[in-house]
């Protein structure tokens, strides 16, 4: 487990060092910055400045015991023994960046380092592709709510910032066909995702996901994304001493105009205001940013080719600040020598 834990141990390695991550840089002083004045033509003052908060986000190092404890709590949702993860993980072969183990008769558990994602699934359920039953969205939602409540009761997730009122429902579909004929699809799993929310702003890539198979059984449970350091005042989450508050000085329209100017040949999808600690980073003092998904396009061999997308985030405090971009291009990459 030593090598695995080492992967987590770089907390603060990127603190205040991420190029272009203004939120993290601003956090270095631990002092609330004054609203910034800028001569940049990109700057636009919002009509009524909104108070925003920067929070400390981490993807913490986990000891083997902590991994087993968390995966065990999730596995109970699927009927795995509470202590099943401990024995299974101690015997599991550890991979760089992830660990995988069978913790029950058909329950598989995983932890993936990149986004600190814990996931359990019941293979007997996820691999049911023949069941004719479809309980429908309503009963699936009831199963989700019950499972979500169980996660909170077992301490697998904290209730703060997770509201089932903001659940998003998507689907895993299955399809089949014979050659030359059109595929026919149907729902396999109802996917319920509850995003982690802070001060009304989602933490990108953080939350809880619970999949209910069309046969009515729980299929998968996942808890993922950075952990938020916050203090509670009533039900209101506020930053710890590491964070700060500030007045938002860059509105969405300003960021929209900037991203269009900087990516003129791309398909741009506005994701909205988000707290965002890019995957792979382990720590940051993070303020809300205007987040976009950028997909450059080009015509090659007469084909309209879509480049792999990247996320680009612009500061809400400084309209001229360099954006945060992930993933980062690496045109210098090399591989094996070709004979």
């Amino acid at each position, binding site marked *: 487990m030593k090598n695995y834990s080492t992967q987590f141990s770089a907390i603060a390695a990127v603190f205040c060092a991420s190029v272009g991550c203004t939120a993290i840089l601003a956090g270095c002083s631990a002092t609330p910055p004054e609203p910034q004045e800028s001569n940049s033509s990109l700057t636009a003052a919002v009509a009524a400045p909104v108070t925003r908060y920067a929070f400390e986000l981490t993807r913490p190092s986990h000891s083997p015991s902590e991994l087993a404890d968390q995966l065990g709590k999730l596995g109970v949702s699927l009927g795995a023994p509470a202590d099943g993860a401990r024995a299974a993980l101690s015997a599991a072969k550890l991979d760089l960046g992830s660990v995988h183990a069978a913790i029950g008769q058909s329950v598989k558990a995983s932890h993936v380092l990149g986004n600190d994602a814990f996931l359990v699934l019941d293979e007997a359920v996820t691999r049911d592709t023949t069941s004719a039953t479809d309980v429908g969205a309503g009963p699936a939602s009831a199963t989700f709510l019950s499972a979500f409540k169980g996660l909170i009761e077992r301490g697998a997730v904290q209730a703060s910032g997770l509201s089932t009122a903001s659940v998003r429902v998507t689907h895993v579909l299955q*399809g089949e066909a*014979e050659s030359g004929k059109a595929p026919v699809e149907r729902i396999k799993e109802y996917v319920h995702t509850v995003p982690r929310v802070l001060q009304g702003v989602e933490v990108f890539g953080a939350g809880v996901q619970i999949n209910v198979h069309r046969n009515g059984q729980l299929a998968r449970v996942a808890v993922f994304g950075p952990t938020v350091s916050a203090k509670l005042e009533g039900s209101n989450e506020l930053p710890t001493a590491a964070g700060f508050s500030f007045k938002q000085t860059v509105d969405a329209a300003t960021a929209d105009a900037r991203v269009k100017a900087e990516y003129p040949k791309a398909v741009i999808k506005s994701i909205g205001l988000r707290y965002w600690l890019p995957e792979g980073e382990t720590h940051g003092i993070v303020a809300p940013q205007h987040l976009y998904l950028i997909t450059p396009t080009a015509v090659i061999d007469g084909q309209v080719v879509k480049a792999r997308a990247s996320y680009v985030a612009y500061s809400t405090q400084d309209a001229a600040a360099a954006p945060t971009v992930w993933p980062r291009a*690496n045109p210098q990459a090399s591989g094996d020598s070709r004979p």
Partner: protein
Amino acid sequence: MSGDFTALRVATTAVVLAATLHASSAAAAKTYFIDEGTDFTGNGCEITDVNTITASLQTSLSAASWTGSRYVNASAYPQDFWESCSSVYGSGGLDGSYGDTGFLSVYAGHGSAHYIAFGYPHSSQCGVDFSTNARLGAMNGASAGFGMWLACEVVQSSQLTSAMYQRLSQQAGWQNSIGIGDDEPRDFFNATSTKTNADAWIDQMSTGGRDAIIATFSNTSAECWPKHNSAKLKANVGNTTLGGGASCGGGQPRYYVCYEHHTG
């Protein structure tokens, strides 16, 4: 969907699967072939530069005793995936020596429906049209069994029974525009030590609104779902080539496909 497909899939068992797989396909070695493009500017196939995503995959493959090659940027040729048995598929095809020589066949770069785009032209070509250029798993080479297409929109469910057909046991990709983290292909591969390829692909590659899709192909309807629901790359379960493909220049034999994807 044909009626017999529906009836037969319900009746399938693991015994049927084992028997049919034995009859129609061959166990594959733990081998791979990877081409990756990250430099897409200034070389003649202009798109945009992108991150490296198969370096750590190759490391994990090697650690699991898989053998193969990974060519990057100027060393990655579109013709590596072009069928080499005939110029009908384009002149200069090399799949018999490259893209159709490893059980796991991977391309990382950019793409569109049934098309993958390379960063450097080779013999004035920038890409592979799976419909017109490639017959992976058949004809020359005929060793590929799992196609992993790490690019946008390559695998479309509506094309699985037409333009995206190869002679592969499984193909995995996305139906929409996506970003991919540096280590996600590695994390997918490692997850298949315990999970099925289908579960591992859906779990790892569906986050953030990505419409990840994984499809399984079979010679009979009875084989498809059992194979889809059991194959595990790293655990070396169901790593069998599809077999039974056409000879050079031949058309597609009758086949079946089953798949799943996350609507994102």
